[in-house]
């Protein structure tokens, strides 16, 4: 059964009822348990769990130290192309937005790679808009070929692919996939993605399974927080992660917790996700899936990222830009969204070290 079928069995209105019905006693019971089930995860996301954040934080910290040690893996995004034929209302690359469109030439890819590698980073995340005629599979393969000389782990965050296409990119040298469902609410998804290939909810939802089925090493999933009620979105993300881990036990499954940031276009997030809410999601998820990676990007502020170091996060981006060619070129092209933590890799490294943690630059070795 695919996750699409599993998700169809969940009645969204029942979730509201369950969140509201949860009592402090239910939360205490869950906090005594050694391993948590989906229902327990839901309990920790409920309003009743809010007074227990400190206790959840202590457990989350302990679990993270056991599983990952005092380490934070650093990576940076590299935007290859912002051409896009979708109309995602919340995204700066929306085809309707009048922005300068650009795709890196292979010479520019090499230049960006060299500039990023000089900071010591070995893990890179490459991104494109959704324009497969321009940022084609063959173009991506050529980029990966170049990047593999500079980096030991190459992740993609691009348009959803078919299983054979994922296999082609794995064979070319990628080892990890990041793909956000944006919202797990199918009706809202339809409203937000009016036109373009991304409007196919099911094809996007099943993308991680397709990649796992052809041997990807790691996947990271998430919902864009702010589009819908966060408790439901967080619960579905956790269900999705648990589904992937159960069905593909050899894959490293992780989640990202992206909150909406200002971007080109006038769409404003309809739901506010406060710092406290985001931390509740992160802690609940850590207790639910102790082995899973948690990524917090530079969408978040320096202060927020500093404060969550001991709360379950395992991966952070650094020295980020969301502009195509932004690592080497100061020419103006609009980024996908505004980043908030502007620290360089070196500054992040110093910050992490000053708190007794180790910034990890390499945690994968290609074995092709």
């Amino acid at each position, binding site marked *: 059964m695919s996750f699409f079928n599993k998700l169809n069995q969940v009645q969204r209105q029942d979730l509201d009822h369950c969140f509201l019905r949860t009592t402090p006693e239910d939360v205490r019971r869950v906090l005594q348990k050694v391993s948590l089930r989906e229902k327990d995860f839901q309990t920790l996301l409920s309003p009743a769990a809010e007074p227990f954040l400190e206790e959840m934080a202590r457990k989350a910290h302990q679990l993270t130290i056991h599983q990952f*040690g005092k*380490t934070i893996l650093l990576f940076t995004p590299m935007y290859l192309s912002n051409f896009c034929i979708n109309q995602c209302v919340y995204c700066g690359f929306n085809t309707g937005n009048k922005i300068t469109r650009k795709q890196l030439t292979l010479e520019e890819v090499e230049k960006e790679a060299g500039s990023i590698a000089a900071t010591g980073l070995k893990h890179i995340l490459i991104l494109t808009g959704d324009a497969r005629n321009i940022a084609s599979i063959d173009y991506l393969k050529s980029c990966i070929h170049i990047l593999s000389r500079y980096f030991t782990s190459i992740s993609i965050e691009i348009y959803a692919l078919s299983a054979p296409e994922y296999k082609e990119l794995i064979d070319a040298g990628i080892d990890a996939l990041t793909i956000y469902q944006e919202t797990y609410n199918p009706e809202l998804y339809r409203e937000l993605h009016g036109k373009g290939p991304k409007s196919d909810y099911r094809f996007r939802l099943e993308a991680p399974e397709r990649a796992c089925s052809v041997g990807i090493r790691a996947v990271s999933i998430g919902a864009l927080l702010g589009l819908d009620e966060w408790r439901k979105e967080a619960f579905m993300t956790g269900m999705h992660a648990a589904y992937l881990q159960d069905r593909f036990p*050899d894959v490293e499954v992780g989640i990202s917790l992206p909150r909406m940031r200002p971007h080109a276009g006038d769409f404003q997030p309809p739901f506010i996700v406060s710092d406290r809410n985001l931390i509740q999601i992160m802690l609940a998820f850590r207790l639910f899936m102790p082995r899973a990676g948690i990524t917090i990007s530079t969408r978040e502020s320096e202060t927020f990222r500093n404060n969550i170091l001991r709360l379950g996060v395992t991966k952070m981006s650094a020295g980020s830009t969301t502009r195509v060619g932004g690592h080497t070129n100061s020419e103006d092209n609009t980024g996908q969204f505004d980043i908030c933590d502007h620290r360089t890799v070196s500054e992040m490294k110093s910050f992490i070290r000053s708190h007794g943690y*180790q910034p990890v630059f390499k945690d*994968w070795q290609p*074995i092709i």
Partner: protein
Amino acid sequence: MDMKDGLRIGNVELESRLFTGTGKYGADSLIPEIIKASGSQVITVALRRIDMASAENNILDNIPKNIRLLPNTSGARNAEEAVRIAKLARAAGCGNWIKIEVISDNKYLLPDGYETVRATEILAKDGFVVLPYISPDLMVARALVNAGAATVMPLGAPIGSNRGLQTRELIRILIDEIDLPIVVDAGIGAPSQACEAMEMGAAACLVNTAIAGASDPVSMAKAFGQAVKAGREAYLAGLGAISMQGIASSPLTGFLHENEH
């Protein structure tokens, strides 16, 4: 103890029976202190973490040259991947010892015995000194002996769990039945548990999380070094038999002695 009590693995004679790891430390610069405090002579490191090209972030720079490097195949999901990682490690100058970790279950990190045996067979034939990590399963251990393993490394509890010798009875069977050094590899959370493994007759213990996750890792490394030594000495000294109650004279056969008076 007067007699030399070394542990022989491959062609190497080791004095220390505590193996340590390199993962999960807040700073790799702690590693030399851990080695010194624990007395360990063998340290395992994941090839995926080694960055030979880096001037600043090469973990190997923190490992003293007189310490035996035990690269491991962390990240391998099947025998083929483990073999490739082992060969990459050897080509990178990490020597011919290899700890096989084949894990196709990311939830509990339990090793895959079948794939581990396959990888061991290939690598032992290729001249590696193979130290395979397994669940304590007698049949898998026997297959590893036949495949040419240098040791068998059963887990005491799931890796990183600090839950101690949960698999005690199965490890005891391996110690009794397998004619290779048994190195208890994962789950040991306290020096007392390492001591117990050694008292049972384990040849060595590998400890990482319990040291790296301690508030004072260097002191904990020292405590583990002492515990492993104490356990080994107790094993060699011969522990007395354990009874659940005080034993009276001979309630069942006492009559045999009645006519002797």
